[in-house]
């Protein structure tokens, strides 16, 4: 097996950052959700609808930013429907999330039928001046779409928000013990809804990124399981934003690595290589969950359980 040249490695890193941003952004959104105690299995459906919305707006207006806005709004709308059902009507969170995924998958396929042949206007290049000319580090780190950098900023901002701000503390309290928070006078349900909708916005951004930047096309089912991976990420990053992002890059890296290995003629059947990211996810999941105390300490205690005020 031939080695990887430094230039190739730099490009691999760039590809990893790109691939990881999609899952990472969605996972950050789901993290906010889950910190408030709500688990949203509808990530895949939300991302698909957002991907379609973003693409459609992009094609019709030619504006990237409007496209992202549309994606975020789509995600928020789907999340709101989900939120009302599970927070106010107390429907089962897992089942409702699954319904959201099925519905979102069907809706996006249905609405997107006429858009399969469409193409987005010419993409601008994003190069950070001067930094992107650095050898190796330049192409690896500094030639990305703004959303890649924004995602990193989001992660940092979220860490600060959760750990240092009052609002973040309230959010975590709602996730750990909604009854106590309610007793203290906090509007638990509204806070949860806010968290769910915010999460939906981030998932929507991630979905729009897929169809507008990552693969500028629309085709049904194009999210291809990334929503589920994002869900897995929040668990195995023990609900910490920085770890979520690291996990996302790990997943993106393994995905790109398997193509690299194929191209280099490594004599392993491609199917085994394609399996790698999923197996890697399971392994990390196992390692993380191994210690039940650790999980219990890190997981928001009320995750998945319905909240009844005054019950």
């Amino acid at each position, binding site marked *: 097996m031939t080695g990887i040249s430094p230039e190739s490695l730099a490009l691999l890193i760039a590809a990893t950052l790109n691939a990881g941003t999609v899952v990472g952004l969605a996972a950050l959104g789901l993290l906010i959700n889950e910190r408030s105690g709500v688990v949203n299995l509808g990530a895949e459906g939300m991302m698909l609808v957002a991907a379609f919305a973003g693409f459609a707006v992009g094609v019709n207006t030619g504006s990237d930013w409007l496209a992202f806005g549309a994606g975020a709004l789509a995600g928020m709308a789907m999340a709101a429907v989900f939120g009302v059902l599970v927070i106010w009507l107390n429907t089962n969170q897992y089942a409702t999330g699954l319904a959201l995924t099925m519905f979102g998958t069907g809706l996006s396929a249905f609405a997107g039928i006429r858009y399969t042949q469409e193409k987005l206007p010419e993409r601008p290049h994003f190069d950070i001046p001067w930094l992107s000319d650095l050898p190796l580090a330049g192409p690896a780190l500094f030639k990305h779409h703004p959303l890649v950098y924004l995602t990193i900023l989001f992660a940092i901002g979220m860490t600060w928000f959760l750990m240092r701000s009052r609002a973040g503390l309230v959010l975590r309290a709602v996730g750990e013990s909604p009854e106590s928070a309610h007793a203290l006078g906090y509007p638990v349900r509204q806070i949860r809804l806010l968290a769910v909708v915010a999460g939906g916005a981030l998932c929507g951004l991630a979905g729009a990124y897929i169809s507008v930047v*990552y693969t500028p*096309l629309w085709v049904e089912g194009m999210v291809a399981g990334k929503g589920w991976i994002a869900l897995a990420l929040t668990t195995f990053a023990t609900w910490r934003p920085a770890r979520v992002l690291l996990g996302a890059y790990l997943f993106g890296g393994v995905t790109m690595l398997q193509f690299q290995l194929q*191209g280099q*003629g490594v004599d392993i059947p491609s199917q085994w290589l394609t399996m790698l990211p999923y197996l890697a996810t399971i392994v990390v999941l196992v390692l993380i969950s191994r210690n039940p105390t650790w999980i219990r300490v890190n997981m928001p205690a009320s995750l998945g359980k319905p909240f009844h005020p005054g019950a």
Partner: protein
Amino acid sequence: MTTPLSKRSVLKLAGWASLAATAALVGCGKKDAAADAASAASDAAPVASAAAAPEPLKIAFAYVGPVGDAGWTYAHNEGRLAVEKEFGDKVKTSFIENVPEGPEAERAIRDLVGQGAKLVFGTTFGYMEPMLKVAADHKDVKFEHGTGYKTAENMRTYDSRTYEGAYMAGVIAGTMTKSNTLGVVGSIPIPEVIRNINAFTLGAQSINPKIKTKVVWVNKWFDPPKETEGAQSLLNQGADVLFQNTDSSAVLQTAEKAGKYAFGWDSDMSKFGPKSHLASAVINWGPYYIKATKDALEGTWSTGGVWWGVKEGAIDLVSVSDVVPAETKAKVDTIKAGLKDGSFVIWKGPILGQDGKEVLAKDAVADDKFLGGINFYVKGVEGSVPTGK
């Protein structure tokens, strides 16, 4: 949680039965009107109703993907439209898209026959077994199966020599590459695709013996995100001209983003890569579909199998970009002419396998059987054919 089980289930049965009964009553009344409206609605283009002319031949097409895929299915649909144009009101065509390969297709094909189709085209390998079963039950209907190999008295196969388009693309790639590394995004490792990879490489080697070809497999015909990742990975590994055997324009668009070159596949994809598009290897199903329809209309239809290429007008390399030097364009045109009159043969020895041994001796010409079962890479392609052995 224990017993009113029987009561519950009886009530449920009553509820659902009454709902179904209501729908049936309403439905029956409108059924005939709906059926007429339905068959008119499913035609893609209006057919002038002939007052006293013979019944138009009903032709149905089953597609594996969406007509809007700008690739494989789009090309088939163009073929269908060509038939309509050629025969006017002597035929009435219809299609269903997104019919998955495998046993589910049987139901869809039976439904087409049930709706009166007398000539049915199945446009992907995976319809083979289902079509055989339906053909056995409906001897009065003619079945045409694309890219398969099993036939019956009323079912025959047709295919296109996509490797000819691949070869010509290879010639251009060999000229345009600066890094001498070419990349191919492969779909599923069946002989057809392996053959195309080989032809592409042979074409490039005929201009530039130094090139090597890297291959990645996405294991799907159509998966734009994976195609993008595969293409990106090839570019990262030094390829500067990309080729594909997958059905979307993702590879071309990825090359466009990176300022490299690529080709269109199945249909003309030039609009998806204004700077990166070198040429598109297109399949033109029109000529064959017209012939098949003619056979069916005139009663000269008989079973067998055909494999058409540039000679019959089924394959072409179109929209060659202006960045391609004039002498290369001329060379491609010469090859096309040679394929048309039979004077140029792609698979003519000596052709070496990856281990350097001859798979085709000097001046030997490969026959269709050899080509049909190709399971090896020629010298110049990196990696091994994914067979799991």
